[in-house]
């Protein structure tokens, strides 16, 4: 499969029709694996890396899941193509910086991606729309079990799967869910929630993982501990926490509707107004405003069939996606901001105005507070 045909359709995980899709954008599980008797990629000499790559790549390509997959050496990809893969969460930002000696294999549906010679010899991940951590793990476990019959994994009787970084040793598994929490952000409860999540040993990160900023009220929640707990328990614990967060976010939205409908409507209305009329918009501003548009669909201010379109905006307005759809070869940041605004403006022309008729704004209290 060619990269152009991969790019022509968005990934199945981005369709956003999974369980609890209003709040959980996607679920992801990744496993880190290394080969016995070989140095880790970061310490390996170039020849070692090339040798490891040729051991692993044919086995990955031969997986039944990888039928008609995109399989590419990193040096064969342009910087723009790599960036599109990053924006689709199919490779890490670190992997995008790699050249010869590394590769990536992505299945047709863009739900399974395997990075070869990232930080570890193998970084495999499954992405699913909505809250589907268990399904994602099951699918990835199957791939891992198939590969272990062909590849001699580095496994330690006491420490489990050995990884370049000691933070991944044991299961080598990191499970995460991308959640959209505008309700908790608007009601100033988000910091409390993040602290509670951190306390039980889970990490909260921004849109593109470690060290990235939270934009568009999107947060990535993942396990930190990889040693001393079985995979199923880690998945269950994370799943339970995400379910709790869904509940909290749902309550926060209801509360806002009842107690601060004005604030809510103002945010959604302004977002719609700016996005409909802006002539230059950065990806950060777009994400933050799109978040309110998405919330508007969830709350019934826009017809539900508009959801897919809004979800699509989140991806197509990212810098590399904009560039790869542009006719002009190298857009400056200003040109990108203009093009982004234009695309959103055009598409929102056919959008109905937010229907807020169902929301009752309570009149300001008079009797209780009024004293003669």
């Amino acid at each position, binding site marked *: 499969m060619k990269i152009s045909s991969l790019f022509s359709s968005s990934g199945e995980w981005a369709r956003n029709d999974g369980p609890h899709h209003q709040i959980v954008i996607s679920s992801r599980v990744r496993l880190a694996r*290394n080969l*016995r*008797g*070989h*140095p*880790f990629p*970061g*310490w390996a000499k170039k020849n070692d890396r090339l040798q490891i790559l040729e051991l692993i790549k044919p086995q990955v390509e031969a997986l039944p899941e990888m039928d008609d997959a995109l399989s590419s050496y990193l040096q064969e990809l342009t910087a723009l193509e790599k960036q599109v893969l990053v924006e689709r969460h199919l490779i890490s930002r670190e992997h995008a910086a790699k050249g010869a000696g590394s590769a990536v294999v992505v299945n047709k549906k863009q739900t399974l991606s395997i990075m070869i010679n990232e*930080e570890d010899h193998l970084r495999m991940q499954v992405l699913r729309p909505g809250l589907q951590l268990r399904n994602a793990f099951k699918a990835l*476990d199957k791939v*891992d*079990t198939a590969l*272990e*019959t062909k590849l001699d*994994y*580095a*496994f*330690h*009787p*006491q*420490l*489990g*799967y*050995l990884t*370049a*970084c*000691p*933070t991944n*040793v*044991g*299961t080598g*598994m990191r499970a995460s869910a991308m959640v959209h929490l505008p309700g908790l952000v608007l009601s100033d409860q988000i910091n409390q929630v993040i602290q509670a999540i951190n306390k039980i*040993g889970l*990490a909260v*990160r921004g849109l593109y993982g*470690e*060290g990235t900023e939270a934009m568009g009220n999107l947060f990535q929640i993942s396990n*930190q*501990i*990889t*040693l*001393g*707990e*079985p*995979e199923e328990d880690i998945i269950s614990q994370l799943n339970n926490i995400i379910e709790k967060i869904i509940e909290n976010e749902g309550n926060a939205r209801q509360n806002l509707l009842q107690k601060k409908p004005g604030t809510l409507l103002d945010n959604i209305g302004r977002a719609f107004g700016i996005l409909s009329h802006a002539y230059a918009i950065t990806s950060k501003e777009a994400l933050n405003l799109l978040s309110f548009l998405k919330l508007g669909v969830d709350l019934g201010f826009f017809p539900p069939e508009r959801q897919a379109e809004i979800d699509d905006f989140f991806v197509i307005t990212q810098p590399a996606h904009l560039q790869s759809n542009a006719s002009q070869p190298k857009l400056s940041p200003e040109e990108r901001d203009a093009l982004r605004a234009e695309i959103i403006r055009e598409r929102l022309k056919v959008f109905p105005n937010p229907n807020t008729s169902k929301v009752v704004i309570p009149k300001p209290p008079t009797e209780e507070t009024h004293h003669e």
Partner: protein
Amino acid sequence: MVCDVCKTNQTTVFLTQIVEGKMQKVNLCESCSKEKGVTDPLSFALVDLLPGLGAEQEVEKGAPVQRCPSCGFTQADFKKTGRLGCPVCYDTFAEGLSGLLKAMHRKTAHVGKIPARLKRTIELGVRMKQLKRDLDKAVSDENYETAAQLRDQLRELEQTP
């Protein structure tokens, strides 16, 4: 709780540091914390404190640099990158890593998936270890009948291909 460095004095300084987004915890006594300059958080890194991984410590003691026999990796390299060189490094630097792993994961033994081809060997190893412990106990308790049974079981396991 005793100090992680000298392993004798009572801990008075509980230190948590975020390195590359990962939390690390170290417990120190008064004198070790002063010696390591912990009062100035900018001047040190946790990896320096953990025995076996701290390059500075090795220099202080004048001990030879520990080098992984398989890939040539040293503690100084770990300090620089936060990553290990190869799978064998986990045995080479086992002593220093155990504290670090405990701080990161709270536990130090894997209980999850085992590759199918290693499963039997690993489970056999665990079972034999347990039998050997039981056997030693039976012998020291002068419980010779049980000891004889355990010895037979062990022999049987040793002979399984």
